[in-house]
């Protein structure tokens, strides 16, 4: 896969050194997963390199803008093992830098001239912000259900995955409702799988990247696995679990065996989601026909497993 440069200092005003420094920090160390996903779809569709670059840059700009805002809202101190931008450069600069990225997205896309793409991208940005807003309003709500969280995650995480799948097709004017709807549903599933897997990391399950553990719970946010783990516990144990300060303490409250059983059950539930994703991609293959279908499906089919299981060799 071609290496795409998402961020270049020359793309931003040289007379704003602090902004450039902030972006230097922000864009270094990111995996660029969403840009890679856009590339996977765009190449079989035969999109010109310039358009692919634009789409990759767009999704990474939106994603990184959301991280700048997200870290401030959540008061997260670390991003990619470095101090979060709001801590290092002040909250005001973090907000401005995030806004600036979103503005650049619109400038770049409008110069490309596809009005549907601009409209859809604006919708995705507003969904993202809506999700962030609602998620913040759910802090300390320990009776939240998985279905309610899915709604938030569909806005917050799913919207970007949906964009990755839909935008390349919009760029080539493939706007048929059936196709776009199928891509939308597939993106939703990828978003949910990614988010649920991310939520498991918080409980140190398949945490190969050594991310901080129990951060969500300690900050009062019950994530999807937290809901799944505690929803059938007696009320007194649930309340005790919510107050856990370490994973060891949590496991001693819910029971180590019970914890492992719930992880296995959670995985089974998500395997079903992976099967649904596979079904949707096969439908996509049929809709796209012989010329495009197999190539796109070949790229999309293997995605769900590494996304959820986190390691390619477990896929």
């Amino acid at each position: 896969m071609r290496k795409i440069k998402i961020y270049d200092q020359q793309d931003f005003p040289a007379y704003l050194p602090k902004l450039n420094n902030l972006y230097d920090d922000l864009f270094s160390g990111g995996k660029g997963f969403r840009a890679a996903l856009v590339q996977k779809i765009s190449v079989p569709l035969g999109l010109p390199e310039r358009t692919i670059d634009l789409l990759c840059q767009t999704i990474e700009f939106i994603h990184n803008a959301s991280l700048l805002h997200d870290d401030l809202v959540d008061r997260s101190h670390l991003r990619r093992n470095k101090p979060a931008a709001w801590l290092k450069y002040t909250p005001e600069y973090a907000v401005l830098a995030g806004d600036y990225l979103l503005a650049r997205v619109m400038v770049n896309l409008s110069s490309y001239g596809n009005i549907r793409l601009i409209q859809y991208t604006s919708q995705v940005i507003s969904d993202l912000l809506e999700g962030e807003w609602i998620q913040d309003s759910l802090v300390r709500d320990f009776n939240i259900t998985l279905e309610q969280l899915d709604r938030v995650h569909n806005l917050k995480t799913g919207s970007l995955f949906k964009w990755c799948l839909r935008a390349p097709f919009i760029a080539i004017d493939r706007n048929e409702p059936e196709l776009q709807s199928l891509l939308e549903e597939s993106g939703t599933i990828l978003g949910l799988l990614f988010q649920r897997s991310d939520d498991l990391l918080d409980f140190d399950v398949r945490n190969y990247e050594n991310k901080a553990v129990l951060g969500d719970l300690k900050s009062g946010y019950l994530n999807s696995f937290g809901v799944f783990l505690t929803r059938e516990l007696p009320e007194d144990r649930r309340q005790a679990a919510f107050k856990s300060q370490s994973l060891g303490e949590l496991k001693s409250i819910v029971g180590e065996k019970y914890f492992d059983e719930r992880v296995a059950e959670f995985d089974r539930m998500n395997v079903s989601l992976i099967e649904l994703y596979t079904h949707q991609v096969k439908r996509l293959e049929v809709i796209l026909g012989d010329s495009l279908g197999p190539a796109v499906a070949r790229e999309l089919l293997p995605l769900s497993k590494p996304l959820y299981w986190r390691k390619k060799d477990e896929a």
Partner: protein
Amino acid sequence: MSRWLTISRHDPEFISYLDGSFSRTHRALPVRSLNVDTTTEEVTFQIVPVSEIQRPSFLKVALLAVRAPSLFLSAGPMLATFFYALSRGYEFAPSITLSSFLGVLAFHMAVNLFNDYGDHIKGRDRVRPRGGSRVIQNGWAAAVTLQRAAWVLMAVAALLGIPAIFLSTSTVHPVALIAVLAGLVGLEFAFQKFRLKYRGFAELLAFALTGPLLCVGFGWAMTGLLVPDFALLGCIYGAVTLMYFHSVNFENIMADSQAGVSTWATRLGFDASKRVFNFMAALTIGFTLVFAVSCGRDFVWIVAVIAVGAMMYPLVERVRSVASPLASSLSLLRRNVVWFSCATTLVLIASFIVMAVRGVA
């Protein structure tokens, strides 16, 4: 072992998958959608063997399907009317009273079942996740089974209504008129032919149907008399039903807004919906107060009104503290309103009994 199947609405077999009649051994569970703009031309099903579905006991499924707690919204007004009539010394026909009571309950259950069936067939349950009993969506019963049960209950309701209409001594036609009117409104709720439920009329119709109309109709069938107090009593319950409906719509404000569904909650917005709920709460207490005054200025009624107000306080407080359209406290609101209705009925009945015993009535 389950499999996935996507089928077009134009496919001749589509409806058989949707209503569950395609197989005796498998259920077709439509995949929930978080995207309201999902094309409605095709539906994806998970085809699951019935043997693999973990189902609660038949009784529990039946109670869930008819949404047993919500039945109190019709049972409560009838019980209150019955005890009020009793405390006032009205003569009544026990068999007609019992058959009318059971008939209304059967009708209410049928409406609930038809409603679930209709929402399922029209795909509304795919985007409005918290609606209905979830019995069909969980694969515990096929949609067609609920539809058949609804027709049976409707027939039972009609049979039980016959004594009230034909055997009642003096008021055959008015009771029949109320029954037919209630039946039509109930059927509109179930089948949503005119989509009144989503045009903002649902609350008003429900107010009449489970409030003054029900109490007057039931009281009329029971005693053969048209008593204005029955209507006043019904207004209390109509206001409670307003709260119930509004809490359901408030609970779904986000999904409905995204889907472009028009309800009082989506039209008013989040904060105004809170105020409307409080207004409905005030209306309930107001009607209780008016009814109490009409019953006589006795200390029993002062206690009763204070009790109703005290029971209302946690509801208002819960609504006040709701900070998010997805807050869990919002999803518990409708259940709390039903409990409030139960408790209010007990307070009213206790008041009627005390009044009768003391000879104040």
